[in-house]
């Protein structure tokens, strides 16, 4: 994984230092947990406890119906479906396009390769507002505005960050197997499919997970390109919910929690996948 041969340095505190470190950890953790606690507690409160004085830290009888009521106040099921659709297509698009591009940069030589690699990386610096206005103009001429196309199609044309990530992973695997397969008569796509992809699953999973998180949480894109409420994504729906005149904080917290569950779940599953992935590549080389 890292370039250093020796063991990295990890502190192993003892005695009062250990106690102090635990105290700091617990204090900081409380600060980080407080908003999440307040989100859950408020999501379960009946309306009269939300602004109650003296404050109600935890609802006397948790009102689980809030979740049902919040999620039916707006068509959140529809929003979830829209978001899933965009996320699913974006993942497929990124996996196909970024794999091809990254493999080319990792394994093939060609005149101009260095130039194009620098060009690819420099697009990471371009602020989105520079292209968002002209893209809106182009998409509206194409009749794509108010459809999912502006949020899906670009994913099929690769993304600099994920290309870079996959290229690093491809470069780390020795080319011997691929060359052997090629001598046996496999063409480049067969080599890619049968040899390279199976040993690169951790990196591919990373790209899929990052893409899922990014599309699930995207806000500016849907805000600009989706106009009808029936086309809204979850974040857009939540923001619309928040800006309605009669803000119901219990409902707002309940829906915030629910729409975050998938990314939280993926995070916990992925944590394991990442560790396994690192161990896997480590043992194979």
């Amino acid at each position, binding site marked *: *994984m*890292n370039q*250093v041969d020796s*063991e*990295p*340095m*990890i*502190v*192993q*505190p003892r005695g009062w230092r250990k106690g102090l*470190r635990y105290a700091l*950890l617990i204090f*900081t*953790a409380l600060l*980080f947990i407080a*908003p*999440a606690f*307040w989100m859950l507690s408020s999501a379960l409160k009946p309306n009269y406890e939300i602004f109650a004085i003296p404050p109600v830290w935890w609802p006397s009888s948790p009102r689980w119906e809030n979740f049902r009521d919040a999620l039916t106040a707006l068509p959140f099921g529809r929003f979830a479906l829209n978001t899933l659709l965009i996320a699913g297509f974006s993942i497929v698009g990124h996996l*196909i396009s970024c794999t*091809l*591009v990254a493999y*080319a940069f990792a394994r*093939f*030589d*060609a*005149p101009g390769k260095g130039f*194009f690699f620098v060009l*690819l990386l420099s*697009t990471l*610096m*371009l*602020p989105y*507002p*520079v*292209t*968002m*206005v*002209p*893209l809106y103009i*182009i998409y*509206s001429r194409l009749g794509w505005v108010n459809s999912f196309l502006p949020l899906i199609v670009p994913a*099929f*044309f*690769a993304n600099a960050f994920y*290309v870079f990530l996959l290229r690093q992973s491809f470069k780390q695997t020795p080319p011997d197997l691929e060359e052997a397969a090629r001598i046996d008569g496999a063409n*480049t796509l067969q080599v890619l499919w049968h040899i390279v992809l199976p040993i690169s699953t951790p990196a591919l999973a990373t790209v899929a997970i990052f893409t899922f998180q990014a599309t*699930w*949480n*995207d*806000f500016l894109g849907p805000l600009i390109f989706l106009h009808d409420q029936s086309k809204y994504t979850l*974040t857009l729906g*939540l*923001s619309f919910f*928040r800006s309605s005149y009669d803000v119901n*904080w219990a409902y707002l*917290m309940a829906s*915030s929690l629910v729409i*975050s569950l998938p*990314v939280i779940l993926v*995070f916990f599953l992925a944590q394991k996948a990442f560790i396994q992935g690192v161990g896997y590549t480590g043992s194979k080389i």
Partner: protein
Amino acid sequence: MRDVKSRIHHSSIMRSPRKRREAITFYLFISPWLLGFLFFTLGPMLLSLYSSFTDWDLLTSPVWVGLQNYSDAFADALFYQSLKVTAIYTLLYVPLDLLGGLMLALLVNARMRGVRFFRTVFYLPTVFSGVVFVVVWLWMLNPRGGLINLALSQIGIEGPRWLMDPDLALYSLVMMSFWGWGRSMVIFLAGLQTIPGELYEAAAIDGANGWQQFYKVTLPLLTPTIFFNLVLSVIFTFQTFTSAFVATDGGPLDSTLFLVLYIYRQAFQFLNMGYASALAWILFAIILVLTLIVVRSQRFWVFYLGEKAQ
């Protein structure tokens, strides 16, 4: 190996059929990105540059106005306000994020029971979408029902109006950003893993205490990570949008009118596509200059292991 070989054969690339086939395959494989670059990046950039010299409301054809949009910007009080807001926010947010992320990373970089739990707690808020993040803090900072003011009232303090107070709104946004320190924590943790332990052993033998080890070993060897974090942080913070749009919608009294929010309004609320494009290019120029300054400053403070110290 491959790179050296390719350089040697560079002159004969087009003469060898194998090399030529390889080059064709290369361009075939990168064609998705190349096409995407033309259609989704370069094309729009040129269109944006062109429209920044025009008056364009999308309904009628663009009218060439030369540098008018740019000179308008420099006479536009709201543009200066948005620049000021964005600059103050970046100036506070970026150092706090670096410091906070480093602190958290050092705290959890220990071999102790339960440390993985703490790492998860610190990282988890960053998986929330920007909208959820902001909505949660809108409620935390609500003057009446928010946890912060309720907690303050328990010790007899009447809390301020936070995001609804024009003097406090921007600083409230800075304050709540601590909940996202987990992102830079993870990058710092990865940076800490690359510091060889034997350097600490050597320092300890030389009689360096904990603080000296931190100043003489950890900090210098983390400068590449700090540099990486700093560049990314500046680029992204200057483009802050969601928190301003969802939390305050630029208010109260334009006290949180971020530059990208102003560009969004000009483009999609007032349909001033030309003016919005000009503002976007000014933003791009600022980001470029800031990045360049940070990159140039590298040689004064970034230390790479294996290079001679300067």
